[in-house]
């Protein structure tokens, strides 16, 4: 275990001798896809609740397809499927984009998490108190202002727990990135395994790293939630912090 750590601590954390690797790459995948997916999901969520059936159905089709198929399959389609089309290979920009494992992985993860976040946020938008919206109208706020100052803040605050759930699930999903030759934590663990045959130790280190990342993310999100929902009434906290972590993880992705 310790000799393994001695040789592989650097690749596991940030650098494998050629490029960034390990925790740094995993975090980059996570942060990029969460931020871009979140930014895309907001207009899509508004479109999902649109009065016009065509718009809301087309967004619904997007989310159904991306939530109904495995992320691994989506990554395969992005990485090996699209690149096998001849017109993609002929175009220089598309060619270089889809030949790069990292950009394909980022694309697949972003679209996937965007679909989940879109459905979550669309649900939260529907749940915003109708009285608040009516009050905003009565105050003469424009549609844009109502969204900007009333609806979005309320919906965002309401869905912080779901977002934190989604981010931790995405962290767990980033493990498949190694199939597209991205050097994340699991890729380093596999390299260590095939070089030393210390299977249990190599994957065990990866498991511990992921466990630690999950706990840290969970803690940060809790702080964040406390900060932004301080004005809302909350049930008295009687459980220890650890046991809230248990109950927090009891829902995987809600469909």
């Amino acid at each position, binding site marked *: 275990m310790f000799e393994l750590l001695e040789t592989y601590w650097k690749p596991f954390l940030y650098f494998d001798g050629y490029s960034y690797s390990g925790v740094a790459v995993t975090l980059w995948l996570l942060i990029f896809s969460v931020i871009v997916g979140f930014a895309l999901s907001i207009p899509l969520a508004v479109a999902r609740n649109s009065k016009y059936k065509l718009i809301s159905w087309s967004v619904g089709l997007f989310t159904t397809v991306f939530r109904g*198929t495995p992320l*691994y399959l989506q990554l395969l*389609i992005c990485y*090996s499927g699209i690149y096998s089309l001849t017109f993609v290979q002929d175009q220089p920009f598309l060619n270089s984009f889809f030949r790069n494992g990292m950009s394909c992985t980022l694309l697949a993860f972003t679209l996937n998490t965007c679909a989940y976040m879109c459905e979550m946020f669309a649900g939260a938008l529907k749940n915003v108190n109708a009285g608040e919206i009516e009050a905003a109208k009565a105050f003469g706020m424009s549609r844009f202002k109502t969204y900007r100052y009333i609806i979005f803040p309320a919906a965002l605050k309401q869905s912080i727990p779901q977002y934190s759930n989604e981010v931790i699930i995405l962290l*767990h999903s980033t493990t*498949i990135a190694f199939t597209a030759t991205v050097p994340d934590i699991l890729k380093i663990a596999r390299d260590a395994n095939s070089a030393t045959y210390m299977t249990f130790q190599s994957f065990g280190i990866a498991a511990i790293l992921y*466990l630690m990342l999950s706990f840290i993310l969970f803690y940060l999100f809790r702080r964040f939630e406390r900060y932004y929902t301080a004005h809302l009434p909350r049930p008295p906290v009687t459980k220890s912090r650890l046991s809230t972590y248990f109950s927090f993880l009891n829902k995987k992705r809600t469909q």
Partner: protein
Amino acid sequence: MQDLFSKALSLVDLGGYGHLILQGTWMTVKLSLLSFALAMIIGVGTALMKSSRSMPLNACATLYTTLIRGVPDLVLMLLIFYGVQNWVGQLTVALGLPFIYIDPFSAGVITLAFIYGAYFSETFRGALQSIPEGQKEAATAYGLSKGQSFRYVVFPQMMRFSLPGLSNVWQVIIKATALISIIGLDDLISAVVNAGKSTNQVFFFLIIAAGIFLIYSMLSNIAFALLKKHFQIGVKEAN
């Protein structure tokens, strides 16, 4: 005419790979159903352990569910598949037994069940807690044994309360089965990847797999709606 017929046949059979894909689909369906059933058993057991009064049982169950849910499923799969294979190999060598090979299918079923059992245990524990204590006491008062009271009083209600959670985890399991092809099982994903590689139409075959997964998850949604109807018998529903 003959030519047209063979063309139509090859279109239906996807250039000769249709039956391969069907086999892969059947493998995926088998894998998901078996691991779902096994995970339910593990989940009920762990939930009962968690609600028991014995401290060590409680701690074991809590440790199991926390560790499993904090670690990604793929890492666990690799850990269990390769790690357990190693241990079994060493054990058989030490005992002088012939080598036992754990095939990817049973490894997949065991791993998925082990992982999602932890998720189910939380669902079931929540459901167990929402059954009023008085009902169990009433069952005891009527002279029902512990097993009978679980079978006839607790279990049906537990199923009803946990059905939404079950359907969520089931959807996750369907998608997790795709990962087993990384371990080397000949499931739907590896079937379409092979077919795509040999016909040079990777994109087309991957899209077919996506369609099959979509249909599968939609069909299971319908099945869960029917199940919900079954377990809701005798419950007044508010409109």
